[in-house]
């Protein structure tokens, strides 16, 4: 249907983009063992090339359509209608940009971080990048599932080998949580494909075809449930978020940056593509439930952040809260909510990635992450403190920085949906300001309690190089979000159009839910 956009750049850009990092990893493995400068340079060049390629694709990208672009489609397993089919719309293009961007940052950031089995570390990062890009480009359910699972493996190793003291527990917990959700999704995939095959006579895993299948209500219910749980674990939504703090605290800095920056977004992306795409009727019915869970996550995540004594854990729990905003915004299903939600995914990737990066830099200097061990750090580390303040302020939603734009749009969206949720969500913003500023105050300001921090070195040039692009993006999106939102108009309108026919039912359910909550 959308094959008009198959060849807009003259070569198979998406396949190249997806497998470029893996190719770099292979070259490093085969030819560069034992030569750190060579393989590090290759890793950097590969990730930069992937970023450049994704940026180049942007120049040929049409923002005025929700159709999938840069499509490529080859038969893979004929008897089952499985194809290697890839393509992007505005949402996935933006998330791919985020992926390639953060991968470069993560690689520069961990230049000297890893001492042990360094080659394997950079190979894992690049393979992970391939997996992530693959998830965002796949337009075939089978292909999607393959990438979805494949990216677990490098992350499992990154946490398990290069993580902190409880890394083994965290790595296994991370893997088992996601894997359990995914295998249930696998059965749901098989069920929807089977149903469609029986109805239409052709077996296909093609996402575009299945999106227009019109599944009956029992398939809608079970299918939605299975897909939703798999993605909710990834986001992670309350109450399946418990793997996240462990994984974040134990993961090495680059792992946390990628985990918070991109992997969590795969969950929301999956909800957009599959829950909404395949099961619009059930999605609309589920809105009140998702809203309640999201709002719980917002407040609960913020409240738990408030009492954390470990900086990294604080940032990790703040992710639970922020991801709550993102799911809440998405499930309002109005233009502001959806666009704000997707934009906030990018913002959260940048800001939280930056915060984890900075916590990592502090940790490399002090070997502690306990807030009480810090205090007055602005004196020995003025540059770091300046960057840190920017990201903290962005994260709590200061106007002029990117976090504000996303949160604002989301709040407008939620307000249109139901006022009571908007009020509770605002509470989360207030709490967010509280725990972030309080942390900043306790770590950066005040007396320099620990005198041995006095001769710490401020950020090196390499470290500043990783932070400047993040800071620049935070300001650019904060001041001029238009080009980013431009990419989301068409896909968001498409989502609303897809759900419109079922919205009538929503009104009554909203009514029911609001009665349940005492009205407002």
């Amino acid at each position, binding site marked *: 249907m959308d094959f008009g956009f198959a060849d807009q750049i003259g070569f198979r850009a998406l396949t190249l983009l997806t497998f470029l990092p893996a190719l770099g990893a292979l070259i490093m493995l085969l030819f560069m063992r034992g030569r750190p400068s060579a393989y590090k340079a290759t890793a950097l060049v590969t990730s930069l090339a992937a970023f450049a390629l994704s940026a180049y694709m942007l120049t040929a990208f049409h923002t005025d359509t929700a159709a999938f672009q840069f499509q490529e489609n080859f038969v893979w397993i004929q008897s089952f209608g499985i194809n290697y089919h890839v393509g992007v719309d505005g949402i996935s293009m933006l998330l791919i940009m985020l992926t390639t961007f953060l991968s470069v940052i993560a690689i520069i950031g961990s230049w000297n971080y890893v001492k042990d089995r360094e080659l394997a570390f950079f190979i894992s990062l690049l393979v992970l990048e391939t997996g992530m890009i693959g998830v965002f480009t796949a337009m075939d359910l089978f292909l999607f599932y393959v990438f979805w*699972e494949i990216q677990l493996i490098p992350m499992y190793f990154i946490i398990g*080998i290069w993580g902190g003291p409880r890394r*083994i527990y965290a*790595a296994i917990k991370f893997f088992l949580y996601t*894997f359990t959700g995914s*295998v249930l999704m696998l*059965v749901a995939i098989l069920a929807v494909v089977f149903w469609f095959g029986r109805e239409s006579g052709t077996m296909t895993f093609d996402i575009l075809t299945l999106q227009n299948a019109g599944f009956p209500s029992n398939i809608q219910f079970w299918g939605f449930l299975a897909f939703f749980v798999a993605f909710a674990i990834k986001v992670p939504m309350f109450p399946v978020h418990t793997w996240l703090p462990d994984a974040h605290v134990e993961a090495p800095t680059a792992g946390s940056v990628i985990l918070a920056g991109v992997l969590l977004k795969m969950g929301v992306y999956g909800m957009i593509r599959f829950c909404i795409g395949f099961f619009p009727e059930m999605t609309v019915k589920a809105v009140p439930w998702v809203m309640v869970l999201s709002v719980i996550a917002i407040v609960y995540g913020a409240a738990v952040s408030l009492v954390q004594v470990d900086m990294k854990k604080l940032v990790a729990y703040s992710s639970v809260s922020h991801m709550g905003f993102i799911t809440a915004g998405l499930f309002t299903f109005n233009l502001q909510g959806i666009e704000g939600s997707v934009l906030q995914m990018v913002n959260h990737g940048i800001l939280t990635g930056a915060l984890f990066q900075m916590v990592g830099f502090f940790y490399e200097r002090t070997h502690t992450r306990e807030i009480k061990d810090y205090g007055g750090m602005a004196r020995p580390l003025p540059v770091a403190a300046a960057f840190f303040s920017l990201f903290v302020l962005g994260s709590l939603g200061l106007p002029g920085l990117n976090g504000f734009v996303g949160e604002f749009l989301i709040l407008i969206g939620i307000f249109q949906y139901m006022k009571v949720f908007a009020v509770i969500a605002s509470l989360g913003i207030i709490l967010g300001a509280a725990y972030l500023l309080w942390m900043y105050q306790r770590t950066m300001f005040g007396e320099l309690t620990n005198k041995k921090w006095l001769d710490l070195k401020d950020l090196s040039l390499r470290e500043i190089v990783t932070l400047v692009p993040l800071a620049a993006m935070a300001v650019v999106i904060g001041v001029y979000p238009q080009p980013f939102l431009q990419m989301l108009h068409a896909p968001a309108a498409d989502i609303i159009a897809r759900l419109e026919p079922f919205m009538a039912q929503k009104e009554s359910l909203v009514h029911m839910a609001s009665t349940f909550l005492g009205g407002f």
Partner: protein
Amino acid sequence: MTPKDLIPIIPELILVLAACLVLVVEPFLSKDKTAVVAIALTAFLASAVVGLGLSGREQVAFSQMIVLNDYAVFFKVLFGVAGALTVLMSPRYLETAGRHMGEYYALLLFAVVGMDIMAASRDLIAFYVGLELMAVSSYLLAGFLRYQARSNEAAMKYFITGTFASAITLYGVSLVYGFTGTTNYEQAGAALAAGGSTTGVALATALVLVGMGFKVSVAPFHMWTPDVYTGAPTPVAAFFSVGPKAAGFSAILMVFLTVFAVSSPTWSVLFIVLAVFTMFVGNAFALAQKNVKRMLAYSSIAHVGYLLAGLGALGRSDGDYLAGQSILLYLAAYTFMNLGAFGILAHLKTQRPASFTYSLDDFAGLARRSPWAAILMALFMFSLTGIPGTAGFIGKFYLFNSVVQADLAWLAVVAVLFSAVSAYYYLRVIMYMFFREPEAEFETGESISGPLAASLALSAAGVLLIGLLPSWVWSAAQNSFGNFFG
């Protein structure tokens, strides 16, 4: 018998001749058994290649006792490959154990002949002869390290439970003969169908099911499996976990689809119940194991559980062999990944014969000591878990797909949840290899080399090839059922 009757059994003839040749040549060899190994290896490969050459042909031979069709060919090739991979991983192991003897290869060849016959038989007598040939050879192989108490125990346990199981099977077979007056699959099936599904037929079905359930280690008839796998020489355990098991399934598929076609609603339910129980037992006990060899034994039970779910689906999908085809694909995938995993165990045992006890602690820090062994083991563990890109995922994908298509989505849910449980114990091996440091000072040991390296490389290649491009195996599995009743 006409000379033309010999065509369908050319692969088996090759194997029998090779076995005899091994026994004749053996006494003339001194310590160096290369010649024997070469004969066995050549014979296995030749039987597989000839088997491939026979594909597409259909023939009934030996008074309708043996058939040649793509179903039989699929298993001839699979067993030939499994035999070859087992031969490749054996010499170093047996030398280290001080029992490198020609008889070993002869027994292996005879066992595979029995397996081939099981898959190709169209008659309950021929099936039983094949079963016993395989079983007797297997008992001897299990006890091949006869100076080790563990190996003796394994042989004894395998022999007693195996004989018992054979007897039960035979009792079921005799009931069928009593009801129908024939042992031919189709004729017996037609006669039973004419008589309708009676209690007698149900009893016969149940007896054959229990007997064969013992052979392929269906819970609750699995008790012998962990002890036998732990005690038997590692290459033999590798062979047991894929060869006789696949042969058992080849015969189960045939017998239940033809002879017991009339009672398919009954056995379908039985298989579903046993599937859930077997998945539970295999996975739950595998979780508790600290010994990797024993864990793999329980894991093989768990995989039997998944296969039984396929059998349950097969009984419910009338005239549609999707589940049967998926079982064949699964068996092929399982052969490569499990032989690979056991191959790594064999390698580690030969590397450190005294200190290596197969316990998880022995795997600590393996990634530093021998990175290649660790990487390959990780690949096989990921495949057993069912991670995409590997044969294990493709096997599960097709198998669970067939289960869903038989309107048994709940069973597929149960199966994938057990797969998620299995991830824990498979990943634990990876965790020890990559995340832990070796407990004591370790000697680096020899790296993987020689025939064992070839065996592991082929297994890994099989795992990845089926994992990434499954179409060729799938079409072979489909063809097997294309002329199933030819």
